[in-house]
């Protein structure tokens, strides 16, 4: 007990950062699934809405039908929007509230006093976001397929699009969540500050209401924000190609999706880099 072995400084290298990042991801994910309110408002919310919309609007018939031909079921129509909403909630809402609460309840201050690298902390957060959002999307797709018989895309190209749109979207959402966690002044105000604007964004971004139904000026506003583009990217994967005609430019505009999300990702990273503090400037 009295003699401590000399501590090799090499043990504070990138491997340790990676190991602790993974340990944090497991720890964070465990805690995530123990909190009843986040399970409902972040994890299950899109699933519940997909169920409600699919059932409630079933009577309206298929979407995009021409002379009784083609079109997709209400469930199929809402699936990409709910996946997009899920990405926004799992990234922005979840991390925005989570980190604001951790800042105010002393968790961050305590971690700042330990030899935990900041990078490992963020690896843990992002790992938790990846695990929970993939689980969420799996449940959404499963619900759509099993309960509502939605046809899933079969072309590998579609799934390739899904992969890059998902990764870019979830990274952007996670980074923006970390960035806006600095807005709430206290842990108690975190949910009221963060949830309402995101809810408005979901309504004007083509998640709950078809984007083409919105007036031009509202479309212009929501086109600035990432959710509209996430939803559009997901529609390109899950809806038939002839639905592209209903999009604003008459096409899925995947380059636009990549550019806008890419810009938000960079903006988010810069804000995090400048703004994030354990509680002060730190290594």
């Amino acid at each position: 007990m009295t003699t401590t072995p000399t501590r090799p400084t090499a043990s504070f290298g990138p491997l340790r950062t990676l190991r602790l990042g993974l340990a944090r991801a497991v720890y964070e994910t465990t805690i995530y699934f123990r909190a009843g309110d986040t399970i409902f408002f972040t994890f299950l919310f899109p699933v519940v809405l997909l169920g409600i919309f699919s059932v409630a609007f079933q009577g309206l018939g298929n979407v995009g039908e021409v002379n009784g031909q083609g079109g997709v079921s209400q469930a199929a129509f809402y699936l990409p929007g709910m996946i997009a909403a899920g990405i926004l909630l799992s990234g922005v809402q979840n991390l925005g509230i989570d980190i604001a609460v951790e800042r105010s309840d002393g968790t961050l201050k305590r971690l700042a006093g330990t030899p935990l690298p900041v990078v490992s902390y963020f690896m843990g957060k992002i790992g938790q976001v990846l695990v929970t959002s993939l689980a969420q999307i799996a449940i959404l797709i499963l619900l759509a397929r099993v309960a509502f018989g939605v046809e899933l895309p079969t072309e590998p190209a579609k799934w390739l699009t899904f992969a890059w749109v998902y990764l870019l979207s979830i990274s952007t959402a996670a980074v923006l969540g970390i960035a806006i966690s600095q807005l709430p002044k206290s842990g108690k105000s975190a949910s009221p500050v963060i949830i309402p604007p995101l809810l408005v964004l979901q309504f004007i971004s083509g998640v709950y209401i078809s984007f083409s139904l919105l007036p031009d000026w509202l479309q212009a506003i929501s086109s600035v924000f990432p959710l509209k583009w996430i939803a559009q990217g997901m529609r390109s994967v899950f809806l038939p190609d002839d639905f592209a005609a209903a999009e604003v430019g008459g096409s899925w505009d995947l380059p636009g999706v990549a550019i806008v999300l890419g810009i938000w990702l960079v903006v988010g990273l810069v804000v995090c880099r400048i703004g994030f503090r354990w509680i002060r400037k730190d290594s």
Partner: protein
Amino acid sequence: MSTDDTSDPAVRVRDLRKDYGHFHAVDGISFDIERGETFALLGPNGAGKSTTVEILEGYRERTSGEVSVLGQDPRHAGLAWKARLGIVLQQTGESGNVSVREQLAHFASLYPNPRDVDEVIAAVGLEEKAKTRIKSLSGGQRRRVDVALGIVGRPELLFLDEPTTGFDPEARRQFWELIRSLSREGTTIVLTTHYLDEAAQLSDRAAVIAGGRLIEMGPVHELGPAEARIPIVRWRDASGLHEERTETPAARVAALVAAHGELPELEVIRPGLEDIYLDLVATAEAETRAQTPTQEQTRVDA
């Protein structure tokens, strides 16, 4: 114990200052804490204790002065340095959706040479709560978790900021035993406390801070001016209550009894740390008020 020169003090502070605007929260403090020593920082709320400790811990920037903690300036010290510290903050915090054991195991994994998790749980007396979620614990039990998290990394230097707030008397005794055993193992301990009996029980030396200045420092039993420790003989007679300081209280009592017979409320008081401390603080505050009659009263921190 460590890679740096062990003949250096664990903590070295020279002319430390911290200003918030025009308010001098810490106003030129100097002290050393030797390795293996238990050092108590005493002082009223807002005196600058926590500010000083948080500068040592690396949480706050200083305005000026020199600070060295385990041979490094906390301003630039990295993860390897943090691995050698244990910090029990004043504020209890935790999301709480993890069990005591899970939380300790997780924090242990952050350190290169941690203590055994179950031993630590036993040392803070939480064996029966090991599988309980932290949010279901009482305030005193949560505080014990804070202490456990502070020591699980086997720190060379342990900061304890008001560690026993919310403890029942038995838990405090148990905590004192724990601190003594850490001290026997060679841990340097910096204790901030409101409980003067705690400081008297645990610390080798104490410093008293008031108004951002260090007004007294020394072995706990030699704190304060010598005359402050002179015993007081107190009694009541027909003319009222009397108090007399004397180095020979027994002789004084004998003389009183010889002159007046049995006296009501006769007692000999040996001033404890608390009396001496209160005297010191009152004197310091009176001096400060005399010097700066219109200083603003804003207290930035506790």
